[in-house]
């Protein structure tokens, strides 16, 4: 092997001979959620491919050099859009929940896992408008 790949792979991070396949755990999570939703019949694979390529096209038009490193960013945006369009979880729900996680992350003591507290979720940030 050439040794050009990063050497800081997390133990559970999928990778192959040329380096990590997912660079960060969230990429794997986004990937797996998409597959599960597809397998459960919430969208066809053609619908997914079209959502993803639309996202990539839009990103390129916005100036993304699109070198493969932003791939799962596009993937995530496409998943959010498709989930909203299919009525699985609205944009409002998604934004409110993201904010709830942000607050939870800020409040969690350092070194402890971040938990989405029910009070935070239902309280000041969880209400959708």
């Amino acid at each position, binding site marked *: *092997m050439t040794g050009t790949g990063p050497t800081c792979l997390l133990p*559970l*991070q*999928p*990778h*192959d*001979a*040329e*380096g990590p*396949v*997912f*660079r*960060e755990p*969230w990429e*794997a*999570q*986004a*990937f*797996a*959620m998409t*597959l*599960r*939703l*597809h*397998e*459960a019949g*919430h969208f066809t*694979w*053609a619908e*997914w*491919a*079209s959502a*993803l*390529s639309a996202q*990539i096209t839009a990103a*390129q038009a916005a100036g993304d*050099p*699109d*070198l*493969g*490193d932003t*791939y*799962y960013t596009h993937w*995530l945006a496409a*998943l*959010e859009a498709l*989930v909203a369009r299919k009525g*699985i*979880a609205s944009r409002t*729900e*998604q934004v409110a*929940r*993201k904010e709830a*996680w*942000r607050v939870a*992350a*800020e409040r*969690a003591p350092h070194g402890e896992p*971040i938990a*989405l507290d029910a009070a935070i979720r239902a309280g000041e940030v969880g209400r959708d408008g």
Partner: protein
Amino acid sequence: MSEHDHHHDHDHDHPRLTDAELRVRALESLLVEKGLVDRPALDALIDLYETKVGPRNGAQVVARAWIDPAYKAWLLRDATAAIAEMGFRGRQGEDMVALENTPGVHNMVVCTLCSCYPWTVLGLPPVWYKSAPYRSRAVIEPRAVLAEFGVVLPEETEVRVWDSTAELRYLVLPMRPEGTAGMDVEQLAELVTRDSMIGTGVARRPGDAS
């Protein structure tokens, strides 16, 4: 209480979670609550693609085709069925086509639109496969791209570039290397690299560094 005078020196301003991490957590927690996904299933999927698929499935298919002419003929005629027979089934219901490399024809695969990829046999796509330069240049100047991968073909070899779609994925059947006459399937599979099955590489020769 004043808001700004409790300044800490450690990186308080750095978010604990990135924007993408927050969005993934948001989606995941919503989907779990709605009963649409569950975490063990997500973890199982990630584990599957991490340890059980990889390019090894594809290598098994190629090695068998090298050894078994009847299987090879079936693979080239109906790759979806021949690959499924080995237990590797597409998760997206896509059809597979196997492309045989010969001294006269070298096949390479791209997805110009996004990054459709035969996960069932090759695991997850490498970063370069997903990059815009590969996606566009593979079609425009395949020989230059191949040279960057260290593959220099004779002038007379025709290069064919195949564009994947959501419904159709390609597996390149690389040429069997010389000096492998007595080898069994397991030994041969070791020589089949991922890139050789995308067409941006050739199979290793016995004794080549892995």
